[in-house]
């Protein structure tokens, strides 16, 4: 078995340890004997995203987001949307997540149009939302926790076909108001959580890998892995958030 993973704009959108997410996807495939072909895609050129099984899009600063926004408008954004409509698995973090909504309005008033993959709009906020996050998510069919760290001033509001990835237990999430965090549409996931999110939430990493395999081979069943260290990191993050919320 083999998965083709596309890493979008690694040179521009790779902040707060995003490469850890790629590492987690890659290692958890390799440990199971699933081959991985990783391709980095940046500015320029047209891409057929249908040839990839999994797409990762990391976070970046406003300046880089503008460059990427222009590039997405040259056609990549539309192609990306088509791939997701056909069932391709995608994860977008923070800045990448913002650019896949309807628009992202920056703190300086610029409006960066998105491709509308998620029915989500992002408005500027005065207070930067920074800190540890714990959320509960039902995307795996049962209630599971996701832990991570958020650092954003944009407030994202979902509508229509797009639903939140989870419900905030600690932290701010999409907008600090409605308790929603992240977004889900078909097999595409957006979230503000870095930390990075995938290594210490192995169930979520496996969900992405499983979803990509199912789409490609019709079966997304995965072999069990030893998650001892992953669970330790997950538990420490949980208890740190609990402790801080009691202060």
């Amino acid at each position, binding site marked *: 078995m083999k998965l083709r993973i596309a890493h979008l704009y690694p040179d*521009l959108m790779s902040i707060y340890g995003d*490469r850890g997410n790629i590492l987690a996807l890659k290692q958890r495939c390799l440990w199971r004997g699933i081959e991985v072909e990783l391709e980095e895609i940046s500015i320029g050129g047209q891409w057929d995203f249908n040839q990839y099984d999994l797409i990762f899009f990391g976070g970046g*600063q406003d*300046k880089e987001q503008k460059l990427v926004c222009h590039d997405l408008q040259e056609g990549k954004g539309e192609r990306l949307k088509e791939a997701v409509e056909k069932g391709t698995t995608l994860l977008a973090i923070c800045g990448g997540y913002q650019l896949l909504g309807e628009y992202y309005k920056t703190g300086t008033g610029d409006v960066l149009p998105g491709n509308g993959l998620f029915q989500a709009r992002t408005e500027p906020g005065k207070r930067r939302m920074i800190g540890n996050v714990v959320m509960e998510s039902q995307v795996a069919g049962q209630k599971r926790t996701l832990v991570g*760290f958020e650092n954003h*001033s944009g407030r994202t509001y979902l509508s229509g076909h797009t639903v939140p990835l989870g419900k905030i237990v600690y932290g701010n999430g999409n907008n600090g108001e409605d308790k929603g965090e992240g977004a889900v549409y078909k097999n595409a996931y957006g979230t503000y959580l870095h930390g*990075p999110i995938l*290594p210490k939430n192995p169930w979520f990493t496996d969900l992405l890998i499983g979803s990509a395999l199912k789409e490609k081979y019709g079966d997304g069943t995965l072999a069990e892995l030893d998650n001892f260290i992953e669970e*330790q990191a997950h538990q*420490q993050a949980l208890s740190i958030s609990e402790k801080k919320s009691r202060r």
Partner: protein
Amino acid sequence: MESARLVTAVWAGKTISSLSRVLGLGAGSTYPGRIMRKIDPQVLAKLSRGFSQGTVMISGTNGKTTTSNMIAHILKKSGRKLTHNKSGANLITGLTTSLVGSCNLLGNLKAEMGLFEVDEATVPLASKEIKPQIMLVTNFFRDQLDRYGELDYTASLIKRSLPNIDYQGTILLNADDPLVANLGQDVEQKVIYYGIEDEALPLTDIVQAADVKYCVHCGELYDYSTVFYGHLGKYKCNHCGNFRPKPSIFASNLEFKNITTTSFNVSTPQGDFGVTINLPGLYNVYNALGAIGCSLMLGLSLEEIKSGLESFLPAFGRMEQIEFPKNPALLILVKNPTGFNEVLRTMLIDKKPKNLLICINDNYADGEDISWLWDVDFEGLLLARNEINFAVTSGLRAGDMALRLKYAGLASEKISLDKNLKDGLERTLAMLPSGENLYILSTYTAMLEMRDIIQKKGYLKNYWED
């Protein structure tokens, strides 16, 4: 009235300082300043005007403490009297507190000059009050980004503070960091650049986690002919023509002799000299260059500077040697990807396989966001050479650190994890074969705690260097 207010503030500051010292209250490095500012909001501005030889301000992500300690050491050795804030007390209240000890009850200073290491976000306010004659900016790296948001924002904080510097003063900038060098454009003060000119250095690729790869002016990709570390190097933008300014103070012929010493040649407009410092790694060459530039501006001779640098020993914890009964160890501070990478690169000078104890906390002073661990190049620097015997991870984020090593490809059997620092150390010492080196790498608060544990065990000899 105004002077009465100042005298009251100074009196209060002195009283609280001695009380907290006598009573062992701690927080003695910031609390007096807070009260003083309540009594007289202008206390820092008023006191810092009193330095006959002026004031120096140092900011930037990495090297603030080491650079200012170097300058302080060179100045003291040359007989200058100065006031110097201690590391960790680099916010506005800490700066204010640092002046209490060096003035009399009337607010008259005993020192001739003030040397202030200032946190980046505090520079706008501190520069407005202190109005320094010399401003040194070391570098901008992604550090505890969670505090300030984004790197461009941090740079803009410093940029807009530059008009606060004495218009006849000097701005000393690292030429090799595009974000820092850019600060020197369109300012009225004199600008002096320092950097490294050594084509023989082993080149490194610009790391994936580099913070500044794109031109600070036009956003196009920089063309680097040389990368020294992180995004520091010789860069130019082929699109808008922005390029690295030529440094007038520079280091060449760098030689990393062993894990604790580095030699290089220094060139300055006043002449050249060779120097050997008791510190490892390229980043300390940058620190030395900043200190050299600053000392020159203050009128010191090349001889004074050389002898000061050569007798300088690093501050506690940043790189400290410890003798356990059966093993020599080094306790090293790590706080961001570039610093950590430099430490790993320095460790490669030691050819033997490494025994590691890595302690990661996520308290405020460490940075609460530990995602930066994933931007450290463990793959390239340690694992590629099969250089690790074992790694124990400890601290509040021991799990994240262990996870980082696991996903870097270190076999799970080589990783053990103990959240409690004392237990982590015990476990490590028990695993360590007699006579082998131990490397203890710690974030700031974990390092303080670890140092305390080691001291209680009786294995620490050196205390705070002044």
